[in-house]
């Protein structure tokens, strides 16, 4: 009890609010669910009639809830990958292989003092991280994670994404201006200049793709790329993909374009004066942005949730297990299979290594059994449900790109601000225009040769 009281006392105001509101909201949601289930017919009818409302609420909740764990995962990945590239071990104390360190960082950030400097514009100073985080999370809504798994299938999805993603710069500018610190100011202005410059090649590089796809809906673009991997747009738009990748790196403020928080020049840029959960918002937003950018690259150029190959339908095993027909056998299976399997799996370890105590062998067997069953369940779901397979492919590809971003951060030094701007205006912009013209010309030529 005292430990709980002590921890409570250490929380800042923001932390106390968060720790109060989150359980309350959870309780409220549960209560609502119960009410719907019990009193339900008219409510269910109403919701069924207005499916968009349910979809919106669920999507918003899911996106908000998953943004933080995915940020945790990417932060951990960044710490670990860069450490391994630096010939270090990196986080290895909290959780298995240190994987909970970023969670602990998140808790630490909640407990730190929420400090705002003398002379800062309090309101703007507080709002800035919210704007940044919000814009990062809102972009997640239109990204197609899997067939039927997306927040909204807008017909202007890409436009929405660029528009809302561009809001980040407003937040950064607010942070830089309101901090009452010249380092922050320089950081904020740098980010404004950088994002505004890179927005143009970023958008232009996709226009060629849009000509090919004929739609702005990310879902439709992904569907267009189904089939074997040579249907992906990266093979029709290699230059566009490269430009998009570079510009997206700059958009997400990642190395080598992380000038807004160049720690060796302008201490931490716009985040210099931030601490506590406000800094946490910036931090999470950055990594959510990384995920969004990776997902966008995958959705646009690398086939989204499509597998890189298709196999004939007759190769797919049909696992139509009718659980209801098994009767008493199911009960026996549920009761008997786990203990027997655990014993069977732990036996070789106990027999093979005489120094191993029986209980450790049992634990190993238990873990092995769970792994096997988990893999079996995931495999079954992968085969049976389209959306699970899509989600797995999408996340796999996305995290490959996240890894690439982290890898670049571990390798490259930072460019200078004038080189950054020169690169955008002198190289990327002409190159993206060239890409656009070549694509348009090719389309015209194809149409002349082979009229529809």
């Amino acid at each position: 009890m005292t430990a709980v009281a002590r921890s409570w006392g250490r929380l800042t105001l923001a932390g106390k609010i968060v720790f109060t509101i989150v359980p309350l909201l959870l309780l409220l949601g549960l209560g609502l669910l119960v009410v719907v289930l019990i009193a339900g017919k008219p409510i269910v009818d109403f919701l069924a009639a207005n499916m968009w409302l349910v979809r919106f609420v669920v999507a918003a909740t899911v996106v908000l809830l998953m943004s933080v764990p995915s940020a945790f995962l990417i932060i951990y990945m960044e710490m670990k990958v860069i450490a391994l590239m630096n010939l270090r071990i990196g986080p290895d104390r909290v959780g298995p292989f240190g994987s909970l360190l970023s969670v602990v960082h998140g808790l630490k950030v909640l407990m730190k003092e929420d400090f705002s400097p003398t002379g800062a514009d309090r309101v703007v100073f507080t709002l800035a991280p919210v704007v940044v985080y919000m814009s990062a999370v809102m972009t997640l809504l239109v990204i197609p994670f899997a067939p039927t798994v997306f927040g909204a299938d807008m017909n202007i999805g890409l436009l929405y994404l660029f528009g809302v993603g561009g809001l980040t710069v407003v937040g950064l500018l607010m942070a830089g201006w309101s901090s009452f610190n010249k380092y922050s100011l320089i950081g904020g202005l740098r980010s404004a200049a950088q994002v505004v410059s890179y927005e143009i090649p970023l958008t232009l590089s996709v226009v060629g793709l849009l000509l090919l796809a004929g739609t702005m809906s990310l879902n439709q673009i992904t569907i267009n790329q189904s089939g074997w991997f040579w249907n992906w747009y990266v093979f029709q738009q290699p230059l566009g993909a490269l430009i998009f990748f570079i510009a997206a790196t700059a958009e997400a403020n990642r190395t080598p374009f992380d000038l807004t928080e160049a720690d060796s020049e302008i201490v931490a840029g716009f985040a210099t004066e931030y601490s506590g959960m406000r800094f946490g918002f910036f931090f999470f937003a950055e990594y959510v942005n990384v995920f969004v950018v990776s997902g966008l690259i995958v959705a646009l150029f690398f086939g989204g949730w499509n597998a890189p190959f298709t196999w004939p339908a007759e190769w797919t095993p049909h696992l139509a297990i009718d659980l209801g027909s098994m009767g008493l056998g199911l009960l026996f299976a549920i009761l008997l299979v786990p203990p027997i399997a655990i014993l069977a799996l732990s036996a070789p370890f106990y027999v093979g290594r005489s120094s191993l105590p029986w209980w450790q062998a049992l634990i190993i067997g238990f873990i092995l059994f769970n792994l096997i069953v988990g893999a079996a369940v995931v495999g079954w779901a992968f085969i049976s449900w389209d959306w699970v397979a899509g989600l797995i492919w999408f996340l796999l590809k996305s995290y490959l790109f996240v890894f690439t971003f982290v890898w670049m951060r571990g390798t490259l030094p930072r460019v200078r601000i004038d080189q950054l701007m020169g690169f955008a205006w002198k190289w990327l912009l002409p190159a993206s225009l060239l890409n656009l013209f070549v694509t348009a010309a090719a389309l015209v030529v194809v149409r002349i040769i082979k009229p529809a």
Partner: protein
Amino acid sequence: MSRLPGLGIVKGMGLTLRRFFEPKATIRYPEVRVDVPPKFRGRLQLLYDEWGTLKCETCFQCAQACPIECIDMGGIDTKGRYHIHWGAPETYGERREESALRRSGRPVPDTAYAHFDPIHPEALEAILDRYDHDPKDMLAILEATQAEYGHLPVAALKLISQRTGAWYAMIYGTATYYRHLRFEPPADVATPLAAATATARAARETTFLAGLDASLAGSSGTTRAAPGAGPARA
């Protein structure tokens, strides 16, 4: 650069990816501890000699040299002369001066050593020859010496230490352990050597002090402490 632009970046990325899989250089400290080299000087500790006795002579050179005055010491020195109660750093200078002088090889006004009686060493040499200069027979040597001189003069112990190679403190310890060995001549026993010793002692005092003054007159920069005014004497 006439080469393909971006090739260097790709090479660097290749290097980091290769390093990603290479063995790591981290030492997981609390579980794995690096062996410090045998000559490592980072740890402050007092050294012991092969008899398990502290080597520290309380010369205060370390305390004097320590730039941040983190070294201090207390206790008594090995000669039993100074009893130091965690002395103030300001007084180190005097003690250090004395210690440095003693180590420099010049004659030092050492009150503990200036007054021990000279002996005629021939008899002792004969005893040591008889025992083959073997420190294992220390008790027998000491008993024979006492039989010869009537007691154990400091000069004799010094000589035994020098000839046999046994450490002075060990001989001293042996001598103090046995009740029948004594350091002062008994009042009622007159040995043939006692009278000779007394005259030699008087002669030595005068010559030593004269030589001391002469040697100290040449050295400048240090003031000689008045005899008997040793610092921090308990």
